[in-house]
């Protein structure tokens, strides 16, 4: 039951992009077409889950026992940077086309606030390791969901007549705002 609450909360009620404002750069940058969006979401999910596990272990087995909590930011971001490097290498070998499609956005996963954000949130919400993993996977699903919906909407918008001043980022942001409003409808649920 506990896990169900974490899952629903992370995907719908507190969606990481639409309610917590994390992951906006890739959200705006990679959502122009749905295939790249799915690829990005999968890569993020992988890195997010792995990094949550590793940072959890670092926090509770190294930082806390040695009372060096102030090294949290540095150690966490180093882990994330290393993991992204790893994913890049694996992806190049396993799926060169996806690697090409993601392009510059792949190294940008390092600076994706969602990954560092989820790592820190797992610690502040005092989840145990399993809850942390569930949280990470659900958040990544929420990220993917928001990305996918948004990508489809943007593909439709290409075919529409948009006023000059609003073309591009402005209309994307306003659409995201309306999407965020829709997701607010989930807020009483948990």
């Amino acid at each position, binding site marked *: 039951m506990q896990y169900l609450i974490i899952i629903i909360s992370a995907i719908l009620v507190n969606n990481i992009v639409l309610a*917590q404002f994390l992951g906006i750069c890739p959200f705006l940058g990679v959502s122009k077409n749905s295939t790249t969006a799915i690829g990005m979401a999968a890569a993020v999910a992988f890195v997010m889950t792995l990094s949550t596990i590793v940072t959890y272990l670092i926090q509770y087995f190294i930082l806390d026992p040695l009372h060096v909590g102030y090294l949290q930011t540095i150690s966490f971001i*180093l882990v994330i940077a290393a993991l992204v490097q790893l994913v890049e290498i694996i992806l190049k070998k396993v799926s060169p086309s996806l690697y090409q499609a993601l392009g510059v956005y792949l190294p940008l996963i390092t600076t994706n606030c969602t990954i560092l954000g989820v790592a820190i*949130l797992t610690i*502040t*919400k*005092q989840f145990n390791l399993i809850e942390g993993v569930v949280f990470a996977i659900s958040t990544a699903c929420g990220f993917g969901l928001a990305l996918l919906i948004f990508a489809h909407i943007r593909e439709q918008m290409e075919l529409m007549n948009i006023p000059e001043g609003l073309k591009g980022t402005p209309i994307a942001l306003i659409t995201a705002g309306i999407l965020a409003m829709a997701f*607010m409808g989930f807020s*009483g649920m948990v």
Partner: protein
Amino acid sequence: MAQPESNFKNMFLALFTVTFVAAAILGLVNERTKAAIARADIEQQNLAIAAILPPFTYLGKSYKSLPKDEKDSLQFFPAFGKDSALVGTAVKTYSKKGFSGLVTIMVGFTTEGNISGFRVLEHKETPGLGSRMYNWFSDKNKPKQNVIGTNPDKSNFMVMKDGGSFDAITAATISSRAFLESIRRAYDTWKSEKALNAPTTVKAGPTKKGGTL
């Protein structure tokens, strides 16, 4: 000087040096700010206590008490008047069920158990939403929200959605539930402390209140 080539030894050396220097600098800054951080926390605490209790002359020794079925204890700050009679007790309570985790509240109870005031000490709730806990639940013009002056024995301290007497903050039900839960926890523990103890008047100067330490 030309950039060193990217062989393993250079890469390892560069990254190691940078990280080592960084950790050293941070260790230093941490030492320098540790005292100030601790002081800032205590000051926030004392300011909070003074603001939420009826006027008192001095604070007695604070003590901890473990709520039923919980792992983390609450801290009690008894306040006494000039005649050494108990004026009220501030309780530092918490809820782990906030939207973003831990919410720490300081709530003041009069000797009858009425809420004399509260302060939100620590939270990571959404700015503009959960962070409105203080203004919302102390709004004197809104009896369905205002908790000040109420007594958890007489009012049901839950959100209306769950059958209680209080209106939740718009779009911040989770924060609201956490807030009310923390007060319930404080009150229940306060009541059991009161039941364990002798009369509330103490003769000579600041003393322990005889509760658990």
